[in-house]
């Protein structure tokens, strides 16, 4: 990929983040924003460490994405942020949720589904003709685990593992305040190869 390709891809992912912001705000019923924090190509060892290297467990939801753009989408948050998100969605006073029961898990899984699909659908739309097939997401899978193990699990789900991976990371703000929660999208190697002609074509540019 050239620096120009990086810039074009980043612009497309910004489109995705804008639609994800709208979806998150509607879902939560309060001001919320999703923005692209980082857009990197990383060696696999560094990619595995992007969530940090800690013995403190995080909560996460992963979805396998097929269609015009394939890969793995991950919503990950530290426990406090994840449980706070659950309180908001369940219309409970802040601090009510203290552990991961079925309701709390369901709230986070639905957030991953709604925000993640809005994000990727907007990316497909910005691809022009190459994106018309849309996306086909799997049901989200909830996992509470070590951050490195979660990222390793996502990386290992790639059909063709390459030594370098492309990662798009976002950050969340709710009521104007940042929360320790984000989306990571890891397009698979075939999708990256298919994206390049699309983003270079004038009709595919945002």
């Amino acid at each position, binding site marked *: 990929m050239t620096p120009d390709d990086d810039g074009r891809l980043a612009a497309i992912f910004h489109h995705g983040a804008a639609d994800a912001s709208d979806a998150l705000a509607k879902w939560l019923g309060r001001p919320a924003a999703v923005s692209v924090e980082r857009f990197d190509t990383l*060696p*696999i*060892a*560094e990619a*595995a*460490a992007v969530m940090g*290297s800690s*013995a403190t*467990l995080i909560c996460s939801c*992963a979805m*396998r994405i097929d269609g015009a753009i394939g890969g*793995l989408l991950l919503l990950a948050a530290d426990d406090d942020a994840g449980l706070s998100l659950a309180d908001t969605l369940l219309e409970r006073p802040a601090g009510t949720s203290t552990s991961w029961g079925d309701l709390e898990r369901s709230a986070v899984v639905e957030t991953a589904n709604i925000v993640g699909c809005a994000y990727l659908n907007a990316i497909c739309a910005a691809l022009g003709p190459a994106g018309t097939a849309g996306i086909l997401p*799997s049901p989200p*899978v909830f*996992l*509470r*685990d*070590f951050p*490195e*193990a*979660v990222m*390793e*699990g*996502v*990386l*290992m*789900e790639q*059909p063709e*593992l390459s*030594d*370098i991976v492309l990662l798009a990371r976002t950050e969340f703000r709710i009521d104007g305040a940042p929360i320790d929660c984000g989306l990571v999208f890891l397009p698979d190697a075939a999708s990256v190869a298919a994206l390049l002609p699309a983003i270079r074509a004038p009709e595919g540019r945002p």
Partner: protein
Amino acid sequence: MTQADVPPTTTRPGDSIAIGQIGIARGGGVLRTFVGSCVGLVLHARSQQAAGLAHVMLPASNGRGSPPGKYADTAVAETLRLLREATGEPALACTAKLVGGATMFAFQSGTPIGEQNVLALERILGELGIPITGRLCGGRHGRRLTVDVVTGAVTVETAGHGTETLAS
């Protein structure tokens, strides 16, 4: 990835060993890593108080082999070579422990990659006559493992499921 970009084969004792890397230490200290679907391959030479830990990601190199710690076939050979080099013992007697190989998300069909990693390592170690004296593999959760370089004991914390020790 060029050769210059390949992660170092060895790390400082105590550092977490990243995917595809191999850590070697002798005479004291610990080696650590986190694994999910990957497998932590521990080789321990009791007489020399030396240990190697490889963070193995895939079952077979299929001719690629770089970094050597990434693939089961090259990781065993390279960890042995580094241990021999560190101890100065060309005929080193080792035991092995295996940790990891979990199925974290299981979106792909067929034999999970973690299980393939474990099977490949078991086969290769068997062919080399290296006994496997402990294993904690499979399941659906990540693990944090810490290797005591002198004793070869491996402490394994499974996410949300407590801590166990694979004795030396």
